[in-house]
């Protein structure tokens, strides 16, 4: 290797730090500059994204102000835009998905981290990773052709007859709607909860478990009362991560939620979500304020996921550092 560059440093012994000119001649400074430009590009793109969303939504921000979030008239013809039904739909579907996904995901993560032998755990985790790689439009197709008919024929009628006294489970069973979207979202976010929670649980020090067992705790008591509380913040992190995914998820929700802007106590009612309305109306949006209202919805989604992802990362890093002193999450 040295032979190829002999012309450059043939003279004199190697000295600790090379001069700037020498680093320049050897290409170090050039490589440094080029790679820096690409790294800076990443920051620039991110800033530009925020800037464009902000500037792109100037009109509705000025015209409607805070009313944009609390009114529910969405009328492109008279240029009145209120996003409440979309926000409602997003929040409701994301909540349903978490209620279903969190217990299942954490249960599976406990199994993978605490019970399963390493080989089995790795194989199962491999399948979970593949599950996370399934594109959302595929979940949408299965939602349309499998989940919706199942919901309409079996699940929703069953829920109505057993829990129908609650307003949540009343109303006609269309198949499409908040509940179906929530279920499909739950299936989509479970892999994220499992992967991150498993990682966090695995970083809990061994002596915590041994101490609990030595005091006479059963295997479950040591897991539930010692290991899980130790990893609590990290598990919360995984939930926030899943929530951020669920809020921003577009295709699968658009395909099963029914795309009707309604606010209804019934979970069986068709609804709409922020991401779905952007997906459906963006190309048809005529008129500046219509398009900009949709961009403002994009800005809202961006801010929500930004906050949730930030919190998630903070919590996950905090737990892993407490666990084993390594900062990677």
């Amino acid at each position, binding site marked *: *290797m040295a032979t190829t560059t002999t012309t450059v440093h043939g003279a004199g012994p190697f000295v600790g730090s090379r001069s700037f000119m020498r680093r320049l001649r050897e290409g*170090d400074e050039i490589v440094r500059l080029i790679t820096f430009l690409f790294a800076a590009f990443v920051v620039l793109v991110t800033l530009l994204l925020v800037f464009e969303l902000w500037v792109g939504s100037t009109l509705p921000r000025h015209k409607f102000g805070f009313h944009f979030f609390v009114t529910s008239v969405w009328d492109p013809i008279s240029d009145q835009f209120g996003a409440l039904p979309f926000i409602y739909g997003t929040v409701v579907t994301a909540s349903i998905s978490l209620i279903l996904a969190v217990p299942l995901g954490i249960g599976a993560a406990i199994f993978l981290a605490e019970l399963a032998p390493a080989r089995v755990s790795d194989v199962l985790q*491999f*399948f979970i990773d*593949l599950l996370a*790689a399934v594109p959302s*439009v595929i979940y949408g197709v299965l939602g349309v052709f499998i989940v919706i008919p199942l919901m309409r024929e079996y699940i929703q009628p069953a829920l109505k007859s057993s829990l129908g006294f609650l307003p949540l489970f009343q109303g006609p069973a269309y198949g499409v709607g908040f509940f179906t979207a929530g279920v499909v979202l739950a299936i989509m976010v479970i892999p994220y909860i499992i992967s991150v929670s498993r990682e966090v649980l695995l970083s809990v020090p061994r002596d915590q478990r041994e101490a609990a067992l030595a005091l006479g705790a*059963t295997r479950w008591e040591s*897991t539930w009362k010692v290991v899980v509380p130790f990893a609590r913040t990290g598990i919360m992190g995984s939930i926030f991560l899943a929530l951020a995914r669920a809020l921003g998820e*577009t295709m699968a929700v658009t395909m099963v939620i029914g795309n009707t802007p309604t606010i209804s106590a019934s979970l069986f009612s068709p609804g709409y979500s922020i991401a779905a309305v952007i997906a459906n109306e963006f190309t048809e949006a005529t008129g500046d304020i219509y398009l900009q209202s949709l961009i403002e919805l994009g800005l809202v989604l961006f801010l929500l996921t930004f906050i949730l992802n930030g919190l998630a990362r903070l919590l996950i890093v905090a737990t892993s550092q407490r666990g084993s002193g390594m900062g990677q999450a």
Partner: protein
Amino acid sequence: MTARLRWRKFVSGFMLTMTGVCAVVAVVVLFFILGYLVYHGSTSISWNFFTKLPAPLGETGGGMANAIVGSGKLLLLAALVGVPVGFLGAIYLAEFSGSTVAFIVRYAADLLNGVPSIVIGIFAYILAVLPFKHFSTTAGGLALGLMMIPITLRSTEEFLRAVPRNLREGAMALGASKAKTIATVIVPAAYRGILTAVLLAFARVAGETAPLLFTALGNRYWSPGWNQPTSSLPVMIYNYALSPYEDWHRQAWAAGLVLLGLILVINILARAILARGVSVPRS
């Protein structure tokens, strides 16, 4: 054994079994998805699917040749945007930068990674559709490329950092410049990891639909060049699945099977590359 202890042991056994059930349920979902796609898709896949254009409305038959080529073009553009930026940016982070700059870049990358794909679509629309007043392959490729950047960057950086210090020191001790060390020692030592990172980023964007809806749009014919709207597999699946035609539903299943097959193969390949003869201990 007292009643209380028996109860505690029962609870322990019961709850631990339930966690196992949870894990099995989660994994079974994958096989359900695969099973349904293979079941419905395989009967609809034919030679025509890969070679014919979509049939005119109302006629049955036809294929998705234009969508397959369209997806290929979009992914090529995405790789041209995402891989150089991610790879070279990661080299800067791992080899040159101080901790403050590295923190800012990583933070920006994580932020970008968390942005919902539909919002990336809006961004690409503002950058590459609005100024030219038409939808195009380029705009779609840009949207996918932007999504590839953070995934490639973060994992490439990790693999570069995992290269043992003594390899660097060895090269430096032989008198190699830093640029030379990176090109001939560090990157070759980490290449399996980097390849895995790129493949996984590629698989991730291959199935993305939302960012293409209003950038590449769609097209029922071939899309010559790079400046016209183009069809793509994910968008075709979306449109066909929601259409009222039985024949289109069949083709949506077939396209879904092809797309998921491609993505799973890339995923498995990427993990196999990493697992077999790991050149660097995994971090």
